[in-house]
């Protein structure tokens, strides 16, 4: 894949006006140029991460707390690596969600983190809106690493960067299919905001039991028939079947789900010949995606997504701490 480094001139305003937000709690409401700014900023970190000396000192001396109230391996790891590659001191806090979900504890935890003078706090929480609640109580920038079924903004950004790497700048000419458990997916929501803002044509596909009501209002076209949704698609983004989030039975069985919504080689053939295959991970191989599709060389971007994830998170940490660091044009 080629990685053209775009020239920022003229794409967005200079200095802090390019991203005039205190934190990143979601992609809803961001302007296209704000998203493009973050994508462009990430390009330099893609290069750095591919080099032998994967280290910058931009955030040296800063303390970043990763407060994860919900289990996570890859996102936590990605944020930790991102912070460390920028020279920051990164501390991880794992909180079993059961002990912090009730009472004042969540706010108390936020106040505690705040009192430790963190320079940025990265939060994952199982309840929609929890990150914004905390963001309102602390003095430093807050990054949402996933809140309930609401948003996962860095995932939306890294997916957009992955798509741009493979398909180029012109999002307006792309048809993207997001298939799977849309109802319970914060990844889907952030991707919908991001891709529609950038001008892509987004189709969402799910059985009715996993399709949220009123999704058309988010400027997407809903499908129940995966084959129909795939026709001519440039990007096929599969979502993980989140059985742990389901209260009640939403699908009869995983094998029936695969029968209707599993991405097989045969199904992939319905999409554009060079259609990109994506999955936010972790995958249920053999359920929503077959192994031979997930591992399809030249088509599957699943490991690229992980790679872009580190770069996007570095960009977000860099941009959001610029004001505090007194970077010219941002102080």
């Amino acid at each position, binding site marked *: 894949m080629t990685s053209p480094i775009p020239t920022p001139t003229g794409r967005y305003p200079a200095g802090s006006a390019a991203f005039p937000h205190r934190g990143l709690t979601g992609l809803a409401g961001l302007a296209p140029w704000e998203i493009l700014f973050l994508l462009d900023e990430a390009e330099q970190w893609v290069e750095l991460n591919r080099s032998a000396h994967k280290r910058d000192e931009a955030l040296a001396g800063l303390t970043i707390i990763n407060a994860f109230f919900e289990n996570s391996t890859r996102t936590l790891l990605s944020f930790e690596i991102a912070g460390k590659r920028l020279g920051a001191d990164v501390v991880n806090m794992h909180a079993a969600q059961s002990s912090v979900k009730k*009472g004042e504890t969540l706010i108390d935890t936020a106040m505690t983190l705040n009192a430790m003078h963190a320079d940025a706090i990265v939060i994952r929480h199982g309840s929609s809106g929890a990150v914004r609640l905390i963001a309102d109580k602390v003095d430093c920038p807050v990054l949402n690493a996933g809140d*309930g*079924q609401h948003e996962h903004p860095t995932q939306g950004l890294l997916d957009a960067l992955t798509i741009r790497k493979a398909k180029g700048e012109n999002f307006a000419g792309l048809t993207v299919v997001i298939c799977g458990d849309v109802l319970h997916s914060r990844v889907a929501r952030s991707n919908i905001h991001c891709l529609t803002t950038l001008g892509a044509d987004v189709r969402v596909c799910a059985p009715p039991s996993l399709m949220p*009501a009123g999704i058309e*209002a988010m400027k997407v076209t809903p499908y129940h028939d995966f084959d129909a949704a795939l026709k001519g698609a440039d990007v096929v983004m599969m979502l993980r079947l989140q059985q742990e989030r389901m209260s009640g039975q939403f699908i009869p069985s995983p094998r029936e789900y695969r029968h209707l919504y599993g991405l097989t080689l045969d199904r992939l053939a319905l999409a554009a010949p060079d259609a990109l295959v994506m999955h936010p991970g972790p995958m249920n191989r053999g359920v929503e995606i077959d192994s031979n599709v997930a591992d399809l060389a030249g088509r599957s971007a699943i490991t690229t997504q992980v790679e872009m994830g580190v770069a996007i998170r570095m960009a977000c940490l860099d941009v959001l701490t610029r004001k505090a660091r007194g970077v010219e044009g941002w102080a």
Partner: protein
Amino acid sequence: MSTPRPLTVFNGQLVLPGKRPVPGTVRCENGLITAIGGGDPGPDDLVIDAKGALIAPGLVDLGVFAIDKPAFHFGGITRAALMPDQGVVLDKPSAVRFAAQSGKPDLWVHPLAAATRDLAGAELAELALMRDAGAKAVATGRRWIADSGTMHRLLSYCAMLGLVVVTHAEDGGLTGTAVATAGEMATRLGLPSAPAEAEALAAARDIALAELTGARLHFRQVTTRAALALVRAAKARGTAITAGVTPAHFMLSDVSIGDFRTFTRLSPPLRSADDRQAVLEALADGTIDVIASGHDPRGPEDKRLPFADAEPGMAGAETLLALTLGLVRDGVIDTARAFELLASNPAVLLGANAGRLELGTEADLALVDPDKPWIVNSDKMAATAGNTPFDRQGVQGRVLALFKGGLQVS
């Protein structure tokens, strides 16, 4: 409480059933209204100049979750029907008897008996014993009774006892763990949601069972176009079905939950703009009989949480009157109808001899300036907690003085 001095309130605008307010005087003796219209005060009377304010019946608030006197008195509420969902569930005569005494001397508390033991929706509670201990009606609590057989037995039994059954109309199977109404807003926010039809489903079953048993059934809140149509049709058939609502559902739609503000986390959840419009239509055409506060003060431990983890409910007692008078200003209803919704209809459902200015009724009076402007401020509420979705909103209508049984309480 000693017998109060006779009371004469003059120079007011009398709010009488079915009429425009008329200038006049009210006289009360031994806690009852003894003269309406003109007449001179007696020599020992406490004489109050209403200075042109409305002389209205004290509000009868059907279905509150806490006894919160300062908030009730601020809001002109002299009688509050207490929901059985208390720390100690009102499912025994002793609990009912205690609750019935808890407002004295300056507030009437009318306990609603728990329909089922521990409000679990399974076994009938001791309804007759609780009636005789002071329960004014029976309530299913915050939840719907899922089991149709239990609901059938409950309604037939209460029909025999002559007790109104106050129920919550949301099909629990459909709502599950939902905290919002299914639609664009819930989808954008990623909140667990359920179709608004959950209300109509529950209402349809309960109306059918009420007609079968001849029971008097009151839906504490009806908030959707579909369920209101069912209530309207049932009333047209002459059934004893009544419906209530709180100001939240005629003032707000689910757009208000947009910033995850937990003060808008209510049960039932806020609905679509169209359903809100349907509530206004039902208030205008008489389908809705009662406007109540649903007063449920909740502190930070219940509300300063992520939206779905927060408890539902709003502190509504202080804003009940002003928001209802807003409907009068907007031409949805007139003043007499406002007090029918706020006082006389709920009094009839509770079997209380109050809620209207009539000779021989209890002298629960509110002097109201219907135009006095004020700003709702959640930081400075009389209620034990300031969880109002109307924070910083300008409203009009304020209680100037309140009398319970002819005795001034605020």
